[in-house]
């Protein structure tokens, strides 16, 4: 994985850049000494590290605007950062750039129950939004596994999902508005408390744009009343096929569970060893099915799911009898990553989505690849929406292991695309999958996306090196030929 070659001239201007940032954000809001920069060198994709020129931690929208305006005028690249939990390297710094951290934007500004929304600053954690409203019986639905740490601003940038997004949607389906600062320093408001807004849906466009289009400084999220009750089932199967078929049967029966997760045998065993919540360690596949809503509905659907699973040969069935037990069922799944972290020195978490019917084929192929590369793999899977998270186990201290793990991961993602799926379901492209974009998109597709980038950031200064395998200058992409006052497309075929 290579980042764009840093500009030595910019690095040499460090003193000047730091001084300018200090004029905008006085005091401790600018970090420039080497020891202070260490925590910002990496995000959740810790295989990659880079020290930035400096880190700036503004507290107001006006400061963000001034920082971006100054950086644009001076050609300085900017990498926005929330909590730094990205699993795709979205917040990986640039050697010739500054990191713009939003951690001081940590206030819940308004909770508006009458309109079922909350206005929060981007540095509020995902769980912090729910914490602000749960006393009144509300919650914020998207729940990425890192929700205790990850921020709403980062969630907007990555369009984060979570185990409940099958029923309740990704971040994009739960946003009403945001305040966005463009690289020019201009501040725009997209959406608000109403459900629709004027003009093009730029809120939807910015969501999941991975910090390449603007810096979000305020977010209005939709909050939901908590369901009356929730029940979870653990279903163990002797075969992956049995579990996969059960998932299809549940959906075909018209049931959209609040959560529908699958784990394979290595993931089950790692999680059980870590949290000890009673997972069936001899099962080839485990389903965790959560049903929520009216109590009558939970009871009815629990029975229905239990029956469907039995018909597909489930040989382990456990239904949560209490809220504590339901949470315990999830504890193993939510701890799957750290659990796997205990059985291998390092791991890569992949994030492809596939049509669910392809699951048995894809898992078989992954285990073949695992043997071929000599690297272990554990699979956790948002089964309801086909979002697969193979965790590739490797040891960064063994020379060549990281390269092998990268190649293995790339093969898995190419496989996902080949069976009709996509490179990333919820973690984002970042730097991790950047060079694989060509598997899904041709040059024209990518040019159309890059022109959107140019509409927001014509200087390509905001988070460059992410998402796009090659970043063309905007002038090249926008070229329209003019000949004798008439535009023409000479490259197009004629009759």
């Amino acid at each position, binding site marked *: 994985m290579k980042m764009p070659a840093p500009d030595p001239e910019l690095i040499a201007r460090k003193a000047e850049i730091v001084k300018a940032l200090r004029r905008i954000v006085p005091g401790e809001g600018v970090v420039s000494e080497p020891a202070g920069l260490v925590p910002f060198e990496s995000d959740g994709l810790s295989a990659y590290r880079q020290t930035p020129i400096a880190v700036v931690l503004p507290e107001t929208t006006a400061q963000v605007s001034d920082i971006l305006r100054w950086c644009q005028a001076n050609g300085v690249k900017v990498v926005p950062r929330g909590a730094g939990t990205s699993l795709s390297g979205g917040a990986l710094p640039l050697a010739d750039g500054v990191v713009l951290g939003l951690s001081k934007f940590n206030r819940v500004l308004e909770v508006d129950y009458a309109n079922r929304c909350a206005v929060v600053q981007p540095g509020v954690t995902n769980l912090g939004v729910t914490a602000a409203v749960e006393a009144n019986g509300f919650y914020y639905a998207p729940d990425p596994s890192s929700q205790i740490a990850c921020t709403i601003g980062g969630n907007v940038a990555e369009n984060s*999902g979570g185990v409940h997004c099958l029923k309740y949607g990704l971040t994009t389906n739960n946003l009403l508005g945001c305040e966005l600062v463009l690289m020019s320093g201009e501040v725009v408001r997209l959406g608000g408390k109403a*459900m629709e807004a004027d003009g093009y849906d730029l809120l939807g466009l910015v969501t999941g744009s991975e910090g390449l289009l603007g810096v979000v400084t305020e977010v209005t999220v939709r909050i939901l*009343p908590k369901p009356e009750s929730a029940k979870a089932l653990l279903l163990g199967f002797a075969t992956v096929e049995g579990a996969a078929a059960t998932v299809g049967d549940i959906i075909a029966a018209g049931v959209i569970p609040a959560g529908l997760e699958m784990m394979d045998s290595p993931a089950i065993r790692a999680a059980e060893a870590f949290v000890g919540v009673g997972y069936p360690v001899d099962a080839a596949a485990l389903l965790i099915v959560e049903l929520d809503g009216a109590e009558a509905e939970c009871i009815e659907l629990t029975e229905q799911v239990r029956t469907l699973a039995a018909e597909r040969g489930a040989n382990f069935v456990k239904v949560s009898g209490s809220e504590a037990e339901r949470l315990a069922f999830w504890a193993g799944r939510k701890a799957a990553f750290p659990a796997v972290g205990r059985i291998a020195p390092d791991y890569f978490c992949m994030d492809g989505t596939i*049509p669910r019917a392809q699951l048995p084929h894809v898992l078989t192929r992954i285990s073949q690849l695992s043997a071929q590369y000599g690297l272990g793999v554990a699979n956790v899977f948002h089964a309801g929406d086909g979002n697969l998270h193979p965790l590739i186990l490797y040891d960064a201290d063994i020379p060549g292991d990281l390269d092998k793990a990268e190649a293995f991961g790339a093969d898995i993602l190419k496989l996902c695309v080949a069976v009709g799926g996509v490179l990333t*379901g*919820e973690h984002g492209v970042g730097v991790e999958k950047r060079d694989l*974009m060509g598997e899904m998109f041709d040059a024209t597709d990518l040019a*159309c996306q890059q022109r959107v980038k140019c509409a927001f950031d014509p200087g390509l200064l905001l988070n460059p090196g992410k*998402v796009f395998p090659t970043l063309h200058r905007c002038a090249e992409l926008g070229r329209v030929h003019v000949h004798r006052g008439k535009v023409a497309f000479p490259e197009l075929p004629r009759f």
Partner: protein
Amino acid sequence: MIDTALRILKPTTAQEVQTLVAEAGAAARHIEVIGGGTKRAIGTLDPVDQVISTQRLDRIVDYAPDELVLTAQPGVRLADIEKLVASRGQMLAFEPPRWTRLVGARGEPTLGGVLATNLSGPRRIRAGAARDHFLGFEAVSGRGELFKAGGKVVKNVTGYDLMKLMAGSWGTLAVLTEVTIKVLPAPRKETTLLLFGLPDVRASEAMALAMNGPFEVSGAAHLPAFAAHARPLKAEMSTTALRLDGFEGSVAARVDALAVALKGYGRIDALEGDHSRQFWSQIREVEAFAGDPRPLWRLSLPPAAGWRGPHGLPGDALYDWAGGLAWLLTEEPAQKVRAVTRSLGGHALCLRGAAAFGPREGALGELQDRVKAAFDPLGVLNPGRMEGAP
């Protein structure tokens, strides 16, 4: 405005669309893009040289009910899509409206048209808008480039979410040639609870109470007396309606619980099954306002403030989306309607009698213009369609 003298070109392949758009660009011609053409009367259009309809791009490419995904060409009629998914117990959860009678149009809305206009019905409060179910597409940009975005699976964040941009772009950025949407199980049962005689403010409170509890309301509308006369309601006074749907046992339990929660609001009646469906179809199509010659507005407002819009603008109003959508017939000047709506934090779309959209202004307006130029720098497609006026 619509130039009926122009012949409508109906390409049958994406390549034909590409050729037409590229040639138009090369010759500095302008194109009106339509699906079934049922929304042509909404808003304005600068003069065009050609009309392209996607009507003959009318193939269902793939429907995988178990994957909750459907891929089709944009010219497939909405009615045909809905019939197909209903045959497998599924639905388009955003409950797309036709508005054919409302705007006095003829013809059949298409899937592409519904997505391009991002139209959603009463279920939007629970299931989201058309844009929330739009998973991927292939299209020809105003530059004459055939490109794709998104995917054919329900969960995907690879690249920019250009589906959101296409939804509600009214054909001004690209001509869709294939779309993939998410479909969902249709509810087995629906019941609508009715409250009577509530003034707008009380109705707004009742709807908020229902929305803020664990009742999973999938439709919340309020009709003043003049709009409540029609069948199947035949009510003599204002009527507030709350729809609950899903599995039988669940609906029954939630109906009981909601009725208890609403007992301070007077007599409660219920519509079941087909009567309920018929009622919500009327709300979706705003039938109470069809055929009225007055200027027609659709105000999207913060739900709790919904009633304030029409109260500042004399005319006749009815409410959907728990108050977040106010339909308004008013003779008030467009500038005033937009100003009142904006002051309440909302957005106004005019379906008849004035420019559909408000003016693009300031840094946001310039950004919108740059986004348009990114896809259609020469302004080939639907020129002026989304450029608003005060």
